[in-house]
């Protein structure tokens, strides 16, 4: 069954966040907060690739740029919630914990995990991005005119 759009947005956001987390980070945050619940695999973690597409001239017709490695899995909690993950790279452990958090975020644990896992994850990643953007900003050229020829 497909979720409705209104429900999708927060889930889409946390799945994206979990997928982009640094290796091992989600596991460290989750394991510091709770002991992991039991689950059964719907699809054990598998490594594959996806073809990354781009657009010619940035906005035109799509073309195939090349592949990237991804790992995916799906699991069910004993209470029935289904968690999915599709994440960059080849870490089965990261795929597992991402799917687990995805499932747990559909339970009464959601508020607690948002605070203990998602928020610190987001803050940490935002810091890394901001630090990089600040270094880039320091290399921005400030032009000034030395002399201007009048002939």
């Amino acid at each position, binding site marked *: 069954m*497909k*979720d409705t*759009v209104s429900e*999708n947005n927060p*889930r*889409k956001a946390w*799945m*994206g966040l979990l*997928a*982009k987390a640094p290796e091992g980070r989600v596991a460290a945050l989750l394991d510091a907060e709770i002991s992991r619940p039991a689950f059964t695999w719907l699809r054990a973690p*598998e*490594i*594959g*690739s*996806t*073809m*990354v*597409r*781009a*657009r*010619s*001239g*940035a*906005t*035109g*017709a*799509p*073309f*195939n*740029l*090349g*592949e*990237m*490695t*991804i790992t*995916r899995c*799906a699991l069910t909690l004993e209470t029935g919630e289904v968690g*999915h993950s*599709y*994440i*960059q*790279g*080849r870490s089965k452990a990261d795929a597992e914990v991402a799917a687990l958090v995805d499932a747990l975020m559909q339970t009464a644990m959601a508020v607690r995990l948002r605070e203990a896992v998602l928020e610190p994850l987001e803050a940490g990643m935002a810091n890394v*991005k*901001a*630090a*990089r*953007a*600040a*270094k*880039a*900003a*320091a*290399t*921005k*050229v400030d*032009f000034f005119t030395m002399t201007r020829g009048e002939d």
Partner: protein
Amino acid sequence: MYVAVKGGERAIENAHAWLAEERRGNTDIAELSIAQIREQLSLAVNRVMAEGSLYDPDLAALAIKQARGDLIEAIFLIRAYRTTLPRFGASEPIDTGIMACDRRISATFKDLPGGQVLGPTFDYTHRLLDFKLAADGEVPKAPSRDAETGTVPHVTEFLNREGLIEEAPYDDAPPPDLTREPLEMPSTRALRLQALTRADEGFTLGLAYSTQRGYGRNHAFVGELRIGSVPVEIDIPELGFPVEIGEVILTECETVNQFTGSKTEPPQFTRGYGLVFGQTERKAISMALVDRALRWEELGEDNVGAPAQDAEFVLYHADNIQATGFLEHIKLPHYVDFQSELELVRKLRREAGAQQLQEAAE
């Protein structure tokens, strides 16, 4: 004709054992880790990802270690590994307009929204060997400055507003994939771009340079060059909505080239496009120049017979794995082929000798 012979097994095994030993080198020197290669030889890693056509820095670093730093051999390893992976669909086309730019420069506009951001570039270095790197040294921290938030607009957008440059009209036709169907001529631009982004850097650079020197000149300016990370989103069939699965670092080059116009259209700038995995600036600029040269027919230009205008020549020779495979196969045993050549040349020489004797007698 092929004739099977046996007898090389031990020699091959011993050669591979020695290869492993030579790869390791002097064991008094610390061994390189994959993480060291990934972090400290990152531009080599980027080239292997781009031409291996698989974005995975750790795998590319492993391939470089295994190949003893031979990048084409490393690309070969990545291409071979790639074929073993099941493919879970294709991404939504990425949006380079939302790139978090490490570098963004324009050679056509000095003052442009977002500014000229140099990033971690070799440009303006003096290309003098830095002997400080030969000693273990601490690296000073790079300075920071408050960054503007928000996305950086593409340079072509401002030219588009005045209608001064051709548009890249939105389209959603599924692109051809040369990893699934054989490359056939005539090629579409989508297929050419796929071939060029994974093409050999040296070959692409040489072709691009040839257009600058006059073999299919197209007067390219780098309208914009940007390097940074872009999120990748795929549609999750089980959920029915797309999700970001990660980020890739890309280099994008848009060239602004000389005019085309017609009786109905006033003159306007044309464009070439380069987009490559990783920080791969030389390759992205080269790709844009070659892409533009290959568009001669679509833009109503003359075919001056330049190599860079010949799609068949470019696309069939740009892949370094195909090229090296065919080139290097000639070093493998061809004993039987050569035996027949030997016999042929001996026969020709006998005939020529007999003819000379006959002429002398007459």
